[in-house]
């Protein structure tokens, strides 16, 4: 049997979305550090502004450097396109604002990044969009929370901070059975470890800041459009399936078919909300994506070494990572994540909050900061930082205990990472 004519994943990480510049021969992606682009004629300008033709007109809407990153990540995910944003949270907001309106309802996993939880729980209700949070391990809970006004199902492929493994196909079946799209935040996994669209997800959101970028030098996000969801099926998604006065009555599903969501997100979302990615940041992030396969393989390898070390340490009360047999999703992770379930884990330090604080203050190599997915090993105490706005009740529901430490395993020599953590754990018990 013949095979499709396309490059494989590792090759696309380096090449998708780019060809050497035809004018200068530049092999690297040039940084098109410009706000705007010269029109050929009045007719050309009019066509661009009216979505008659495609091309670049103003860097808030699109930019050639940013477009390479968009096309590259869309290719890695198996989507039809992507829209990059100024941050991962801007991407989440762009997805919500493109699909939803006042009166709509979301069913979301309760084990998600604190900022995303705040957006759904506190901010979106001010705009008339409400959310019901459910256990991501229970597809039936998603089904039971769906209401007539529900328009979106949302979860993280690997939850935060408990690394709950989403059974993407099962939740996608629930969503699709109700005529709804499934959007996932796959920041912790990256397309190297899982490609959610292949499992039934319709929208994939990333904080590109994290493992995709990998170097910790630039903030960015992306919404990847799977292009498989039928937005016009039953009139539930008027932003995509009904005429839009913002472009002289265009109906995005009618004109652009599988690209409807991407086109609306760019044409309206970046035009009106303006959360665009800068060309320089796109360049930095592209440098990271080029090495994603080799970095993620090493991240996962180092993570397994760290888990082994923690597993035998007297100061460690528990470990939460799908690679550990105690994790509730251990078997599911083996099925869905044959290359490993990421490089973020959490663990509890004997002695509760005080011991956790001593541990954090005693690490030397690992950096205490509010980020994950850096090339360097990072640690944080979510209860006092990323999740601090959540109530005690919400914290408990999200599985964030006071003793919990979240670790993002980096690319240092694994022996050095283990030595640092082991020493800090001993210090935590004094």
């Amino acid at each position, binding site marked *: *049997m*013949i095979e*499709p*004519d*396309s*490059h494989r994943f590792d090759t696309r990480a380096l*090449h*998708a*979305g*780019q*060809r050497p510049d035809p004018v200068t021969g530049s092999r690297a992606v040039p940084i098109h550090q410009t706000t705007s682009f010269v029109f050929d004629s009045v007719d050309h300008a*009019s*066509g661009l502004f*009216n*979505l*008659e*033709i*495609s*091309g*670049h007109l103003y860097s808030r809407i*699109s*930019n*050639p450097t*940013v*477009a*390479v990153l*968009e*096309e*590259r990540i*869309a*290719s890695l995910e*198996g*989507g*039809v*396109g*992507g*829209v*990059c944003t100024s941050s991962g949270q801007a991407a989440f907001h762009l997805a919500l604002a493109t699909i939803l309106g006042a009166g709509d309802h979301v069913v979301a996993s309760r084990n998600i990044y604190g900022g995303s939880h705040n957006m759904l729980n506190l901010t979106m209700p001010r705009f008339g969009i409400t959310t019901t949070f459910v256990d991501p391990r229970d597809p039936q809970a998603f089904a039971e929370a769906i209401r007539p006004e529900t328009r979106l199902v949302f979860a993280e492929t690997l939850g935060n901070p408990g690394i709950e493994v989403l059974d993407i196909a099962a939740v996608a079946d629930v969503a699709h059975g109700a005529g709804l799209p499934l959007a996932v935040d796959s920041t912790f996994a990256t397309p190297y470890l899982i490609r959610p669209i292949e499992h039934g997800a319709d929208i994939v959101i990333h904080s590109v800041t994290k493992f995709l970028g990998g170097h910790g030098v630039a903030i960015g996000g992306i919404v990847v459009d*799977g*292009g*498989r969801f*039928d937005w*016009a099926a039953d009139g539930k998604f008027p932003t995509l399936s009904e*005429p839009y006065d913002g*472009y*002289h*009555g*265009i*109906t995005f599903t*009618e*004109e*652009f*078919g*599988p*690209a409807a969501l*991407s086109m609306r997100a*760019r044409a309206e979302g970046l035009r009106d909300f303006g959360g665009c990615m800068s060309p320089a940041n796109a360049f930095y992030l592209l440098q990271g994506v080029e090495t994603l396969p080799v970095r993620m393989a090493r991240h996962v390898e180092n993570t397994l070494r760290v888990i082994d070390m923690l597993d035998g340490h007297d100061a460690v009360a528990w470990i939460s990572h799908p690679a550990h047999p105690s994790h509730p999703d251990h078997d599911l992770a083996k099925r869905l994540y044959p290359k490993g379930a990421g490089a973020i884990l959490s663990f509890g330090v004997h002695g509760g909050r005080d011991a956790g604080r001593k541990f954090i203050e005693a690490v030397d190599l690992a950096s205490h900061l509010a980020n994950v997915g850096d090339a360097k090993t990072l640690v944080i105490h979510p209860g006092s930082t990323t999740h601090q706005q959540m109530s005690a009740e919400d914290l408990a529901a999200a599985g964030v205990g006071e003793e919990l430490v979240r670790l993002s395993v980096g690319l240092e020599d694994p022996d050095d990472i283990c030595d640092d953590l082991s020493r800090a754990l001993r210090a935590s018990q004094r």
Partner: protein
Amino acid sequence: MKFQVDDLTVNAATGAVSIERDEVADAPLVVLLHGAGMDRTVWSQQTRWLAHHDTRALAVDLPGHGGSEGPAITSIGELAAWTARLAEALGGPVHLVGHSMGAFIALEAAAATPDRIASVVLVGVGAAMPVHPDLQTAADADDPLAAALMAGWMHGPDQRFGLNPTPGMSMTGTSRAVIEACPPGVLGPDLAACAAYGGAVDAATVLTCPVTIILGTLDRMTPRKAAQPLLDAMPSATIVELPDSGHAPMMEEPGAVRRALGDHLGRLAV
């Protein structure tokens, strides 16, 4: 817009511009026909532009495709007859722009019902369109492999790298999604109809209307040499060769195709 042909609903993208406005009542009617397993959206880079440039443009979904009611029609001859009835339903001779299977339909319709067809533009066409047996097998089984194979072959080899004229979009990803959305049981008969059609050169020989042929130099589904018998049969046709295009120039070099369409319609207006 939706309208009726043979008492079945036909869906067409019109660039969000009504073709029934008084001010365009005398503008040329341009009907764009998609290829096997695809739909109206393959023309998204031309439809809205045409609609805003003094034409009444309709990128139609063939029966059983996209938003048009089925059943799908399974031979080029019958599809051409349907197209003639569509022209009648629209109320006048139409300019046909066809891609791949749509080009065969346009060619056959113009030859069989010349009173209904004002001119034709053939995009990505050969004198014959043999289908690889593995592709036909996958399509007959509604295997997603068929969409992957077509999306890989229909664009020039450089599209493996991407750099889509539409910022942020993956061309092969979009093409694959369009074909995957084709209803079950439609792609296989579409491809079989292309492979079975042997009347292209005969139709070209009797054609009397103006013709433009747009060919991609990098076309791997209907290679350049496969079009030569057609070109020989239509010595007065205007030939536009696009060096960076494969089998789908309307996506790969959308601006060049818009210019070719504009030139074609402009020549007729003069």
